[in-house]
């Protein structure tokens, strides 16, 4: 029976589709709630940040990755472990700046944008802005302030999706007042 034999593959596909469809419904709802694309981008970024600050705990618990010694190691962990774990894709890490403080994640395919087309009146929408927020929030919890933005986006006509990540500074751990 065709239904039964396809059950396991269908189930896996359904899961990623559930997430993709839910994200799409979320963005659609935000577009209805807010007047302009910039505001929606900001909201997605903010939500992503809230997700990231919690997701990092889940990630560290499940991946048993130790402390990264430098930004290059961080980049590798993000691409090969984190993206794989949560989005099922492994972006490539390229375009390092000479100072070693900036790199690109190149995604051949972005699971968030399956089935998605940007309508003409939303040309300023950075659909996957949530990801920027998640990365910023998660890294802030491990004492790294970073700037994350989309340099290329397949939804806006580019060949690949490119996320540019820049290290800003190390965040000192807060020591409560009165401690020696």
């Amino acid at each position: 029976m065709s239904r039964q034999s396809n059950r396991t593959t269908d189930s896996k596909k359904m899961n990623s589709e559930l997430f993709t469809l839910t994200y799409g419904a979320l963005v659609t709802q935000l577009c209805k709630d807010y007047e302009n694309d910039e505001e929606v981008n900001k909201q997605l970024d903010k939500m992503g940040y809230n997700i990231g600050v919690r997701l990092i705990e889940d990630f560290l618990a499940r991946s048993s990755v130790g402390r990264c010694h430098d930004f290059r190691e961080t980049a590798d962990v993000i691409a090969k472990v984190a993206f794989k774990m949560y989005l099922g894709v492994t972006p490539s890490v390229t375009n390092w700046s000479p100072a070693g403080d900036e790199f690109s994640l190149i995604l051949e395919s972005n699971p968030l944008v399956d089935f998605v087309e940007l309508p003409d009146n939303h040309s300023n929408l950075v659909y996957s802005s949530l990801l920027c927020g998640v990365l910023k929030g998660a890294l802030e919890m491990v004492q790294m302030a970073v700037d994350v933005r989309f340099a290329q986006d397949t939804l806006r006509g580019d060949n690949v999706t490119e996320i540019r990540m820049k290290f800003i500074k190390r965040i000192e751990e807060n020591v409560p007042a009165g401690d020696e």
Partner: protein
Amino acid sequence: MSQCCMLNYVVKCFVQENGRCVSKLENMGFRVGQGLIERFTKDTPRFKDELDVMKFICKDFWTSVFKKQIDNLRTNHQGIYVLQDNKFRLLTQLSAGKQHLEHAPKFLAFTCGLVRGALSNLGVKSIVTAEVSVMPACKFQVMIQKM
């Protein structure tokens, strides 16, 4: 598992940003349910009748989305169905503490929309509501609307 996790976080965060958003969540669920059922039933044969559709929702659909089947399906054979999930996955991640219980309706609202959307694209118009009996068990009530 991690997909459900992400989903959880996304819904939670959306919920925190917007005050009274139960109907928005239900609408989001509706859109998602419509999309999912379209993809899922692309190659399945036609359903015999309404009960067949509900069984599909309880078994195949619920398993694909929540990794388990509905535990109990009751009907009065006059268009009302009650679906009982004794360990509803979106609720198991909420701690049992009282301050979190207030969020339970929001997760249920999304799922009600999901079911309503799925049914809608199978040609069944309905109203879906939910109630939590004892965490994490909950019941979804489906009232078929004659078109």
